[in-house]
């Protein structure tokens, strides 16, 4: 008897089971563990805003800002969080255009991660500018003297790129949520029914709605695709457009985009691996999905490996003493520990994923994802702080001295991100109900020979 293997990209549940299992994650009473997690995140968020209040009152002197390193922990953390967002858009938009079937189970959690990561990142330039209450000067508004921002500056490009990214990715997340919220509305009662009825915007799943919705979603995905590639390119040009050794490289845009996606997938793994256990979604987010995420990690990690090697090669090949010194000091200077953390966590640890045994082991993937998160923060630290520390004149060289304000803002940013994500997964479907259903062939009365 012939055995027909189940296509691992197709869900094994029926439509009704998908609705029931996902809605259960919302309607089940939160556990004590959930309250402890949400409480800890709220506490860290308080630390963030408490420290921000202190910075507002006393100024950036509280942070470890000292010449020549005027872009330190805050800018490092800004780029770290912006990068985290990129994997979400890659999975939700780019893989949607490629019709990649494995994205459906994980795309909602990654898209939510994107929005919350960009919300976190957007705090940092505002914290960093010092006079935070004047942040609106960055926006071209008709002021009293009709002074306009300098649009030749990459920092202005960044303002537009990041605010566009936040707006478009939030819109993409919310549009995707509408049919799922309507499904919840139809299966809950009491205050929840009222809340989800308001949020579903009158969605009924009528053909006239799907007709416009499917097209609009496609175009939004098509717009998000170049956007995600542009945002981290623009962020990289904040550095590459200057003449600081270690920054002024043409490789920066693709190098940053690959790094961003790599770090984002690391965070996806860190969040989704425990989440599927807690929400009992093991049957929906399976080893198959993690295997694909691991392959994507390996691919982007290998690009990073190449980029790291190429940076060192070009520093040597350029014959520029300044470039050579910068890269020598990255590996053997006072911050050697950061330089090697970056290379080991990103370039080498990712190569372990060539082995299927490691790639298919969820515990090892989780451990690797933690290394990726740490490694990618250090990558930005090494690039920004390390390069500023060794400018052209040895007389002006200096070292960073982070203070409690730096560490509190960094830790608080994890709380702010974690709080939003924790509230989201308990109140909204963390698996896209309608997209998973789209993958499940509907029952037929007659045998069906053709493809769906």
């Amino acid at each position, binding site marked *: 008897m012939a055995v027909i293997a189940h296509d691992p990209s197709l869900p094994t549940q029926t*439509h*009704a089971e998908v609705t029931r299992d996902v809605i259960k994650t919302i309607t089940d009473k939160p556990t004590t563990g959930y309250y402890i997690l949400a409480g800890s995140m709220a506490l860290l968020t308080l630390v963030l805003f408490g420290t921000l209040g202190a910075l507002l009152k006393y100024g950036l002197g509280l942070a470890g800002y000292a010449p020549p390193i005027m872009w330190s922990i805050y800018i490092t953390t800004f780029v770290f969080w912006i990068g985290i967002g990129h994997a979400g858009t890659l999975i939700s938009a780019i893989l949607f255009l490629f019709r990649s079937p494995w994205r459906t189970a994980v795309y909602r959690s990654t898209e939510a991660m994107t929005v919350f990561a960009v919300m976190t990142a957007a705090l940092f330039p505002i914290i960093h500018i010092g006079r935070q209450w004047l942040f609106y000067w960055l926006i071209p508004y008709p002021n009293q003297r009709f002074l306009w921002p300098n649009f030749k500056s990459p920092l202005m*490009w960044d303002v537009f790129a990041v605010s566009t990214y936040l707006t478009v990715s939030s819109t993409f997340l919310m549009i995707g949520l509408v049919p799922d919220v309507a*499904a919840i509305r139809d299966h809950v009662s009491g205050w929840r029914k009222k809340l989800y009825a308001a949020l579903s915007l009158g969605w009924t*799943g009528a*053909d006239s709605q799907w007709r416009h919705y499917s*097209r609009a979603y496609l175009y939004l995905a098509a*717009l998000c695709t170049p956007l995600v590639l542009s945002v981290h390119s623009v962020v990289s040009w904040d550095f590459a457009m200057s003449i600081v050794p270690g920054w002024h490289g043409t490789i920066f845009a693709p190098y940053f985009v690959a790094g961003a996606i790599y770090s984002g997938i690391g965070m996806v793994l860190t969040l989704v691996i425990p989440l599927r256990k807690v929400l009992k979604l093991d049957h929906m987010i399976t080893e198959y999905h993690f295997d694909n995420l691991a392959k994507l990690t390996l691919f982007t990690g290998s690009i990073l490996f190449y980029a790291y090697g190429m940076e060192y090669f070009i520093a040597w090949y350029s014959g520029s003493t300044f470039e050579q010194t910068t890269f020598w000091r990255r590996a053997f200077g006072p911050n050697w520990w950061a330089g090697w953390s970056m290379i080991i966590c990103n370039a080498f640890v990712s190569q372990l994923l060539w082995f299927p045994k490691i790639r298919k082991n969820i515990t090892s993937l989780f451990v690797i994802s933690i290394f990726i998160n740490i490694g990618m923060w250090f990558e930005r630290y090494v690039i920004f702080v390390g390069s500023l520390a060794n400018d052209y004149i040895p007389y002006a060289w200096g070292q960073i001295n982070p203070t409690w304000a730096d560490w509190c803002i960094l830790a608080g940013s994890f709380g702010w991100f974690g709080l939003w994500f924790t509230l989201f997964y308990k109140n909204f479907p963390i698996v896209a109900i309608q997209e998973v*259903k789209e993958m499940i062939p509907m029952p*037929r009365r007659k045998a069906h020979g053709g493809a769906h």
Partner: protein
Amino acid sequence: MAKAVAGVLAQFDHIDGACDAIRELKAGGQKDLTVYTAAANHEIEAAIGDPVSPVRLFTLIGGLTGCAAGFGMTIWMSLDWPVLVGGKPIAPIPPYVVLGFELTILIGALSTVVGLVVLAMMQAPRGRPYSPRFSDDRIGIFVPCGADRAPSVEALFRQHGSVEVTRDA
């Protein structure tokens, strides 16, 4: 509250039965019908045979407006307060491509959403019956018709395997 529309509502468990019913209704000249599904479905789309959504026009017009706004804003603002730096042009194009691109995406995306909302609201199935099963696992087809045509529509639905047929007065 919209006035209730009279007609027949059928529920289907099977996609082929629902598609056959839609095709037969269409072949019989029924233009106005509403089909409910829990997820987008290409077979149903093909059976209904509606033209491609005009939401793409909103995307195109929004994108072009954003592109023009991005370049227009940067060039006009540079010329409005000209500052000569390093002998470079007052309003150079290469750096402004970034802003032109970002505003193309921003306005293009926002106008796509506006298009979706406007078109979906204009064609919303107001006053038509709905069942929570349609967001779960069933396909719903509603045909607006008077009491005289209702028995034939009910028979058509039953013939194609509808699991539940109700008449809404």
